[in-house]
């Protein structure tokens, strides 16, 4: 019985770990007003971060993020006007709002979104 209970607990822990791996919390750069502040313009998939009605930017959906790819995401964050002159998105890398490592954190996060 004790073995059964601990196996069940281990399974529950594994499930929780898997869930958190699938949906990591947004990094600081995603939320902070003096950093990316992505949440001001974009919505996250329901249940995977702060709820927002912002729609100045597109919804952030994992399928689309993975279709763009890591390099595409990196460029879209670092210098979006280079990709699209009409975009409203700030050049986070070129204008040094975000450090390279912060952009990488965002790329990882977006790429892992459900």
């Amino acid at each position, binding site marked *: 019985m004790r073995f059964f209970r601990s196996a069940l607990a281990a399974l529950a822990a594994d499930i929780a770990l898997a869930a958190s791996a699938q949906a990591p919390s947004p990094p600081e750069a995603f939320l902070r007003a003096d950093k990316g502040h992505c*949440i*001001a*313009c974009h919505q996250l998939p329901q249940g995977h971060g702060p709820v*927002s*009605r*912002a*729609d*100045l930017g597109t919804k952030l959906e994992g399928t689309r993020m993975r279709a763009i790819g890591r390099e595409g995401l990196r460029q879209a964050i670092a210098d979006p*006007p280079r990709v699209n002159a*009409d975009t*409203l998105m*700030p*050049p986070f890398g070129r*204008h*040094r*709002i975000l450090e390279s490592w912060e952009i990488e954190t965002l790329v990882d996060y977006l790429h892992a979104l459900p």
Partner: protein
Amino acid sequence: MRFPESMRAIACLAAFAAGASFAAAEASRAEIAARLAQQLADVPATNFPLGAAAFDEELRARVEAGSAAAAPVLEAGKKVWERKFRNGRSLAACFPNGGRRVAATYPQYDPRLKRVITLEMAVNQCLKTHKEPLLEHGDPQGMGSVTAYVRSLANGQKVAVRVPAAADERFEQGKRLYFTRRGQRNFACASCHLQGAGKRYLDTPLSPAIGQATHFPVIRGGVALTLHGRMRQCLELMGAAPFAAGSEELNDLEFFLTYLSNGLRVLPAPWRPG
């Protein structure tokens, strides 16, 4: 007889130039109006003076519920407006009809000074003429409350800003400033209030360029926030060094922005959250 003929020719040229300038300003306004009408097809332009509340029923209800907050600000403004100067005159005496129905015609272009004169500048010109201490342009307590009061005297009047030929450069400069991206965030005023009008930044819809100038100063946190004060906040959000309240840049920007609202009704001192 040759003199009157040449005078007539000059008058014709002046009228043509004035017409051309009006046409240029009006073409800019019409182009922006058409773009917003297409983008925001569900919202009638007559609702644009409501700003963000035009796109959010819940916010509109809160704005209406908060309208009482304007009363003490307008009362304070009225006191300043009617206060007798040391020479017995008053701010009210400096303006036609004691200031009734004049705010809808500001800003105005002064051909003698070759500058745009905002309502705030006109208030300070009066104070200066009568050797009274000037009000700080961006100060919500003094200048904010007095201009909120004067604009309440134009409640419901249609905005009627004129762009004479000589003011063309100032109008175009205001337009350039509105469309120029600046600051660390690389935004232009038009990025949010034209391209993004009606969409939500955080939880709040972005007000459209047309209609914005109808409702300033707004009552925020119990004080009157002037249009220049708000523009400075926007510039800070854009990561740009804000132009000073009362600067030529913000005057030109106000001139352009207010002309866009021509024909819409003044909506004085609305409450705003935050």
